[in-house]
């Protein structure tokens, strides 16, 4: 390694900035646009972790990621207002997920209500539009519906359970490049 290169490297980290410990950061640093490379790096890392986990743990990978997501959901939602109604809980959930996921309750044309009862089970269809998981999978060329999707499942189930106190389950109905249809089964 030449001295010139080392000096150049050191130079890149030298600034005139005065940093005081009591400073409260009020701005994101660096600017969001400059974070693109970081975001892509994170997506790549996440994708590789999931791919390796799948290779080593096989189908057990889904259980691991689901569990991780569920814990995360419980942890985050514990600070939110507890509610009995599922509609209210979903509203809380959409606030909770803002920035990472956006979703809406959805029903086919022939259904009257968003809360559907069919074959002895009660469920609500959720259409996920913006999803950081889908973006990560597409960044890495991975299939949708695998272990990384299970983290989102766990997250939603954990949060719904925490807010309503009721058991819930989320199933994939369909995955697409622009949106995914999921079924929130209430127990």
């Amino acid at each position, binding site marked *: 390694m030449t001295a010139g290169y080392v000096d150049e490297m050191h130079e890149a980290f030298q600034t005139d900035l005065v940093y005081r410990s009591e400073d409260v950061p009020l701005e994101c640093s660096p600017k969001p646009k400059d974070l*693109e490379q970081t*975001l*892509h790096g994170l*997506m790549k890392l996440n994708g590789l972790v999931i791919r390796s986990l799948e290779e080593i743990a096989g189908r057990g990978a889904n259980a691991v990621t689901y569990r991780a997501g569920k814990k995360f959901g419980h942890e985050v939602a514990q600070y939110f207002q507890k509610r009995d109604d599922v509609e209210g809980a979903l509203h809380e959930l959409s606030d909770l997920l803002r920035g990472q996921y956006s979703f809406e309750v*959805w029903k*086919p*044309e022939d259904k009257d209500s968003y809360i559907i009862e069919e074959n002895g089970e009660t469920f609500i269809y959720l*259409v996920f*539009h*913006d*999803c950081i998981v*889908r*973006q*990560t999978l*597409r*960044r890495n060329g991975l299939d949708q519906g695998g272990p990384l999707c299970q983290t989102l499942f766990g997250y939603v189930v954990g949060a719904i359970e925490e807010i309503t106190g009721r058991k819930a389950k989320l199933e994939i*109905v*369909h*995955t*697409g*490049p*622009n*949106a*995914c*249809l999921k079924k929130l089964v209430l127990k």
Partner: protein
Amino acid sequence: MEIHVDKDACVGCGLCVKDCPMHVYELQNNVSVAVRPNNCMGCLSCHEICPAQALEHRGIYAAKRHYIDIHVCEMLKKVI
């Protein structure tokens, strides 16, 4: 939601009919027709699967696509 199928481009393969979970499309005279457009949730699987790129959706919410590598796309644009 408004779905337009380019009848001249459609090859009648029926992939959109098979793939759509909400049975939005039907094959009529070997051409795909959007018979239940209001049942469309905008997943755009049909766009991805259509070999003729014959579909067009209007009034759709386009999800954020931060995964696109702009630097790579800029380089590709120069080459193509």
